[in-house]
């Protein structure tokens, strides 16, 4: 299986990128040439490679590289935290719906449909406007609008598994529903949960950047890749680097997580790989 993953070249490149981004965020304090919130108007819009700013400075003379590294911390932690909540909610709802079936299943399915009917950004903006923005609240509202796909994937997997011999056998031996779910079914869903988790990180990073860009997410002076682009549009003529670099970071991070999810899926299901890749 690991060999099958490493054969997916974009996925391998992506893992490397994610590790680099992660290290950058982790050691942001040491790698940053300057304090990310230090305002120095004499350095306003300093071009890249001038006045000691490798990637230039923004409208308040803050160092773009330092802000990118620190913003990575915020964006990646929101992405990871939202992924954990999303996956837990999705896996629990999905397994219960798939195993118990009947009314519970129907209810969960319709609830999923209802939540999927709201355009995600609309929903996020409404929630974000009502709740005071913080790392925790961002994580929660992103999860609230993201658990549906995981629920569907896990439910589908449980449905195909629950009639298999080993489950029927366990049931015949008198195992309780909870035991069957936890001991027999859950271990067999770890694969698709891993896929869902990587895709959820990608989605969460993207959604965080959207709301922060629109001004309802992470609030300045704290930097996130999204809010660094807040006013970028007004400075195109003088300082295009302010608009370019944060977007490149978001695209790199999201593409990488998406490719890893893709590679994991192919590695877990070779049939799928042959049909797609």
């Amino acid at each position: 299986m690991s060999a099958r993953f490493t054969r997916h070249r974009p996925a391998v490149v992506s893992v490397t990128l994610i590790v680099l981004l992660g290290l950058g965020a982790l050691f942001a304090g040491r790698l940053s040439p300057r304090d990310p919130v230090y305002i120095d108007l004499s350095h306003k819009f300093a071009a890249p490679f001038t006045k000691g700013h490798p990637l230039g400075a923004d409208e308040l003379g803050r160092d773009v590289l330092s802000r990118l590294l620190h913003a990575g911390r915020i964006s990646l932690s929101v992405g990871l935290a939202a992924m954990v909540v999303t996956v837990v909610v999705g896996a629990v709802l999905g397994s219960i719906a798939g195993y118990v079936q009947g009314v519970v299943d129907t209810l969960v399915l319709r609830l999923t449909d209802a939540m999927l009917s709201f355009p995600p950004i609309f929903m996020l903006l409404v929630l974000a406007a009502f709740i005071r923005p913080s790392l925790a609240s961002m994580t929660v509202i992103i999860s609230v609008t993201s658990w549906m796909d995981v629920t569907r994937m896990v439910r589908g997997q449980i449905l195909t598994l629950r009639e298999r011999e080993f489950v029927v056998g366990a049931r015949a031996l008198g195992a309780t529903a909870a035991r069957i779910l936890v001991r027999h079914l859950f271990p067999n869903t770890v694969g698709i949960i891993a896929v869902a988790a990587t895709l959820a990180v990608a989605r969460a990073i993207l959604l965080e950047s959207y709301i922060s860009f629109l001004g309802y997410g992470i609030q300045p002076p704290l930097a996130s890749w999204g809010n660094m682009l807040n006013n970028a549009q007004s400075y195109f003529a003088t300082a295009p680097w302010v608009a370019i670099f944060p977007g490149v970071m978001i695209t790199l991070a999201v593409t990488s997580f998406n490719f890893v999810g893709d590679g994991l899926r192919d590695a877990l299901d070779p049939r799928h790989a042959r049909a797609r890749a």
Partner: protein
Amino acid sequence: MRYYLARRVLQALVVLVLVSLGGFTVLHLAPGGPAAIYAMSPTMSAEDMERLTHQLGLDQPLHLQYFKWAAGLATANWGRSYRDGRVVLEVITDRIPATVVLMLSAFSVAVLIGLATGIVSAVRQYSLFDHAMTLTAMIALSIPTFWLGLMGIYVFAELLRVLPPGNIGTIGAPFALGDRLRHLLLPASTLGVVMVATWSRYTRASMLEVIGEDYIRTALAKGVSRGAIVLKHALKNALIPLVTLAGLQLPLVFSGALVTETIFTWPGMGRLFVDSIGYRDYPVLMGILMFTAMLVVAGNLAADLVYAAIDPRVRHS
């Protein structure tokens, strides 16, 4: 078929009820509830506030309030905007044409390009073109739409100065089709990129599946030309499942439109939504949220019914 139809419509109705419950909950989650805007006004005394709460029916039990609100929703009585007192439904319908123009133009171009590239990718699987398309599609699905739009403005409006950076037409100038199209080009392309990628990927997967079927091998064995097989035998069946994609994509397209409209100052529904958040205009916010959700439910239902009508396998399973 009749059974399938009835079941599917019933499901959609249940989803609509849940959607309205969701909207109602969010409305009451708002700090201060639906009357919050009046509480902010310095001229309001506590007695005024109490009277208002009573007039708005906010002192009634929650389930009664919900029924009243849902009844209003069903009878096109969506309340009035806090911002200018206009009827919510009117405020929204004013903005629909601009959004429809933007979405339809992005959609039609995206479907054409997506189908074409998807077919070529499937027929020439593992070719350089196929690999390049896979990579491009993945990046296109990962780029934040707002940043793509910003880069479009930077390159085409700021550096090359060939396209306008925003608005639906030149301000103050009389209506001219050419001018409108020039203004449409950048926003529609921005919105279309994600759609092209999705359509291309789905077409490719669907084509590959059909190409593996026995009847395609039979056609090959009979000596039918490859071109005829792809276009007549394979494509016809590969397109069927794609019918549902249009419905499934709708929520994401709305989201993309919101962001695109914000960046390009396009006077559509998405921009209205963002503006209304700034004004805490809850009736309009809820109106748009409900309106888009209902469209999505209807769109998915329509797609499923069309799918069942053209593919008998669906309604019998």
